[in-house]
């Protein structure tokens, strides 16, 4: 089962929930956690496992072969991203703008633009007790997270059996990286906080999940602050709230040190158990 942990807003506790839930589940289940927030992956700061594999990740970009090129201009003409420009007598490629659509390469009549790999980031595979953890990090200056997110999910699918619970710590927001991280998920957990910012961004995230036709539920973090708008809204819209993680300074302090929380705060463990029960029930119900 693939479960994405997402939220419209940064800082609501996606990584806290992802890492604690993954560690807790791994006590009894086969679990792999993926950090798909490739711009700012933070799960690895809480899961300090043993590195068992590392590989560079690439996207494909065209490379100009001067000797073959007749400067016909087709490549510049077919590129919708201004990633390839003809400045006679040269063709210049701008890798950050390239979406790897292959149009320039395959429509070049002289085969003067073969696609070559360009490094965009790095994938690391860790083992921590019984938990597997995959983290990808986008190189600074690379602007496109989507290809790296897609490749990270592919790696996980190739290396882990279908009966493993796959957790995806997703990037914040509602734009393409989030879509890429959640579109293959069987189930999405939306993390929010009971404040006007949290509520506003939760509604955006719900809208996104509805557009993707995803089944989802809500976890309220920092429960006890703010107001009841989130709770009232979920009740009205019949959206299940499967856990409420209490607001506490102690949790903030443990988090700041990069520690897992559930072993030290019993209330958090209880809430994780509620999420686990919900997930296992879904799996038994044949939703995979």
């Amino acid at each position, binding site marked *: 089962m693939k479960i994405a942990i997402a939220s*419209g*807003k*940064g*800082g*609501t506790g996606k*990584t806290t929930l992802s890492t604690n839930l993954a560690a807790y589940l791994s006590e009894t289940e086969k679990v792999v956690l993926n950090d798909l927030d490739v*711009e*700012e992956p*933070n799960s690895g*700061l*809480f899961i300090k496992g043993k590195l068992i594999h590392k590989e560079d990740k690439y996207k494909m970009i065209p490379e100009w072969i001067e000797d073959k090129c007749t400067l016909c201009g087709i490549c510049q003409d*077919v590129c*919708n*991203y201004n990633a390839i420009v003809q400045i006679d007598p040269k063709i210049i490629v701008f890798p950050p703008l390239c*979406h*790897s*659509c*292959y*149009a320039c390469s*395959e*429509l070049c009549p002289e085969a003067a633009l073969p696609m070559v790999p360009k490094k965009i980031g790095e994938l690391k595979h860790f083992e921590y007790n019984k938990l597997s953890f995959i983290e990808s990090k*986008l190189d*600074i*200056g*690379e*602007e*496109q*997270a989507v290809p790296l997110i897609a490749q990270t999910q592919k790696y996980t699918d190739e290396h882990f059996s279908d009966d493993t619970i796959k957790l995806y710590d997703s*990037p*914040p*927001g*509602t*734009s*393409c*990286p*989030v*879509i890429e991280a959640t*579109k293959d998920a069987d189930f999405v957990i939306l993390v929010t906080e009971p*404040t*006007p*910012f949290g509520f*506003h*961004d939760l509604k*955006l995230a719900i*809208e*996104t999940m509805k*557009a*993707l036709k995803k089944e989802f539920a809500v976890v309220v973090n*920092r429960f006890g*602050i*703010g*107001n009841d708008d989130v709770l009232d809204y979920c009740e009205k819209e019949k959206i299940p709230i499967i856990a409420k993680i209490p607001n506490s*300074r102690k949790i*903030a*302090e443990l*988090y*700041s*040190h*990069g520690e897992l929380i559930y072993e030290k705060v019993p209330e958090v463990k209880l809430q994780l158990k509620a999420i686990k029960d919900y997930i296992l029930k879904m799996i038994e119900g044949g939703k995979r």
Partner: protein
Amino acid sequence: MKEIVVISGKGGTGKTSITASFAYLSGKDIVVADCDVDAADMHLLMKPDFKESEDFYSGEIAKIDQDKCTNCGDCANVCRFDAIPVINGEYIVDPLSCEGCGYCARICPVDAITNELQIVGEQYVSTTRVGSKMLHAKLSIGADNSGKLVAKVKDEAKKIAKNNNKDFVLIDGSPGIGCPVVSSITGANFVLLVTEPSVSGLHDLKRVYQIVKKFQIKAGCIINKSDINPKFVKEIKEFLNEEGIVHISNLPYDENFTKAMTIGQTIVEYDKGDLTKILTKSWNKIKGELL
């Protein structure tokens, strides 16, 4: 006219609360922009009137004319984004997967595919409750090109500031280190980094600062929730020293931030104590760095 951009790398450090406080303190003297177009929140505190709105078009999306289509499948074969699945025997474009590269339209043997301009969001020009002009936007679900929308919001803000002889444009930046944040800080005169003393706060600060450094923009830093973890405050300060980043101030962990936000106020309205003093000083210090 100087441009100040507030970023954090990591979400939840208090970027928007702090930016809105500065906006409140400045009243009509500045122009404000919210460049977190993915999940804009500043309007919840500044209550802009959404007076003028305009659709934002960017990029294209493929559209297949089913009357012309012969189901040859060439389009799906060349599509690298798996955006043309077969549904009920017809080739259909999945708008959430299509990246608008136009390859399919170029090779369709019967010209059944056109590229249509996409509306990817809305942008607004507003007046806030304190009388300042505010530029903001909302990106459509799953839209690409948020970097372009960010650039547009910023350009408009600068134009309005110039035309009205305002000294400062204050911008709530985007999260992450990708295209939107690069767009947020391009051309800025000062970047304010808002961080928190935690492993992830420091990790993200270092990553996002590499971009600021590349653009050679002067930077300052506010450490929020500073009493949560003194050890990391020390580490952050060491990093600021090494990089020549101005340490603007420390703010204590204070639930008044949340309480103020819950009733739609900025912290400088709600808190009559230290927080307001520190933020007022911080804002003056930032402006001082630019004069």
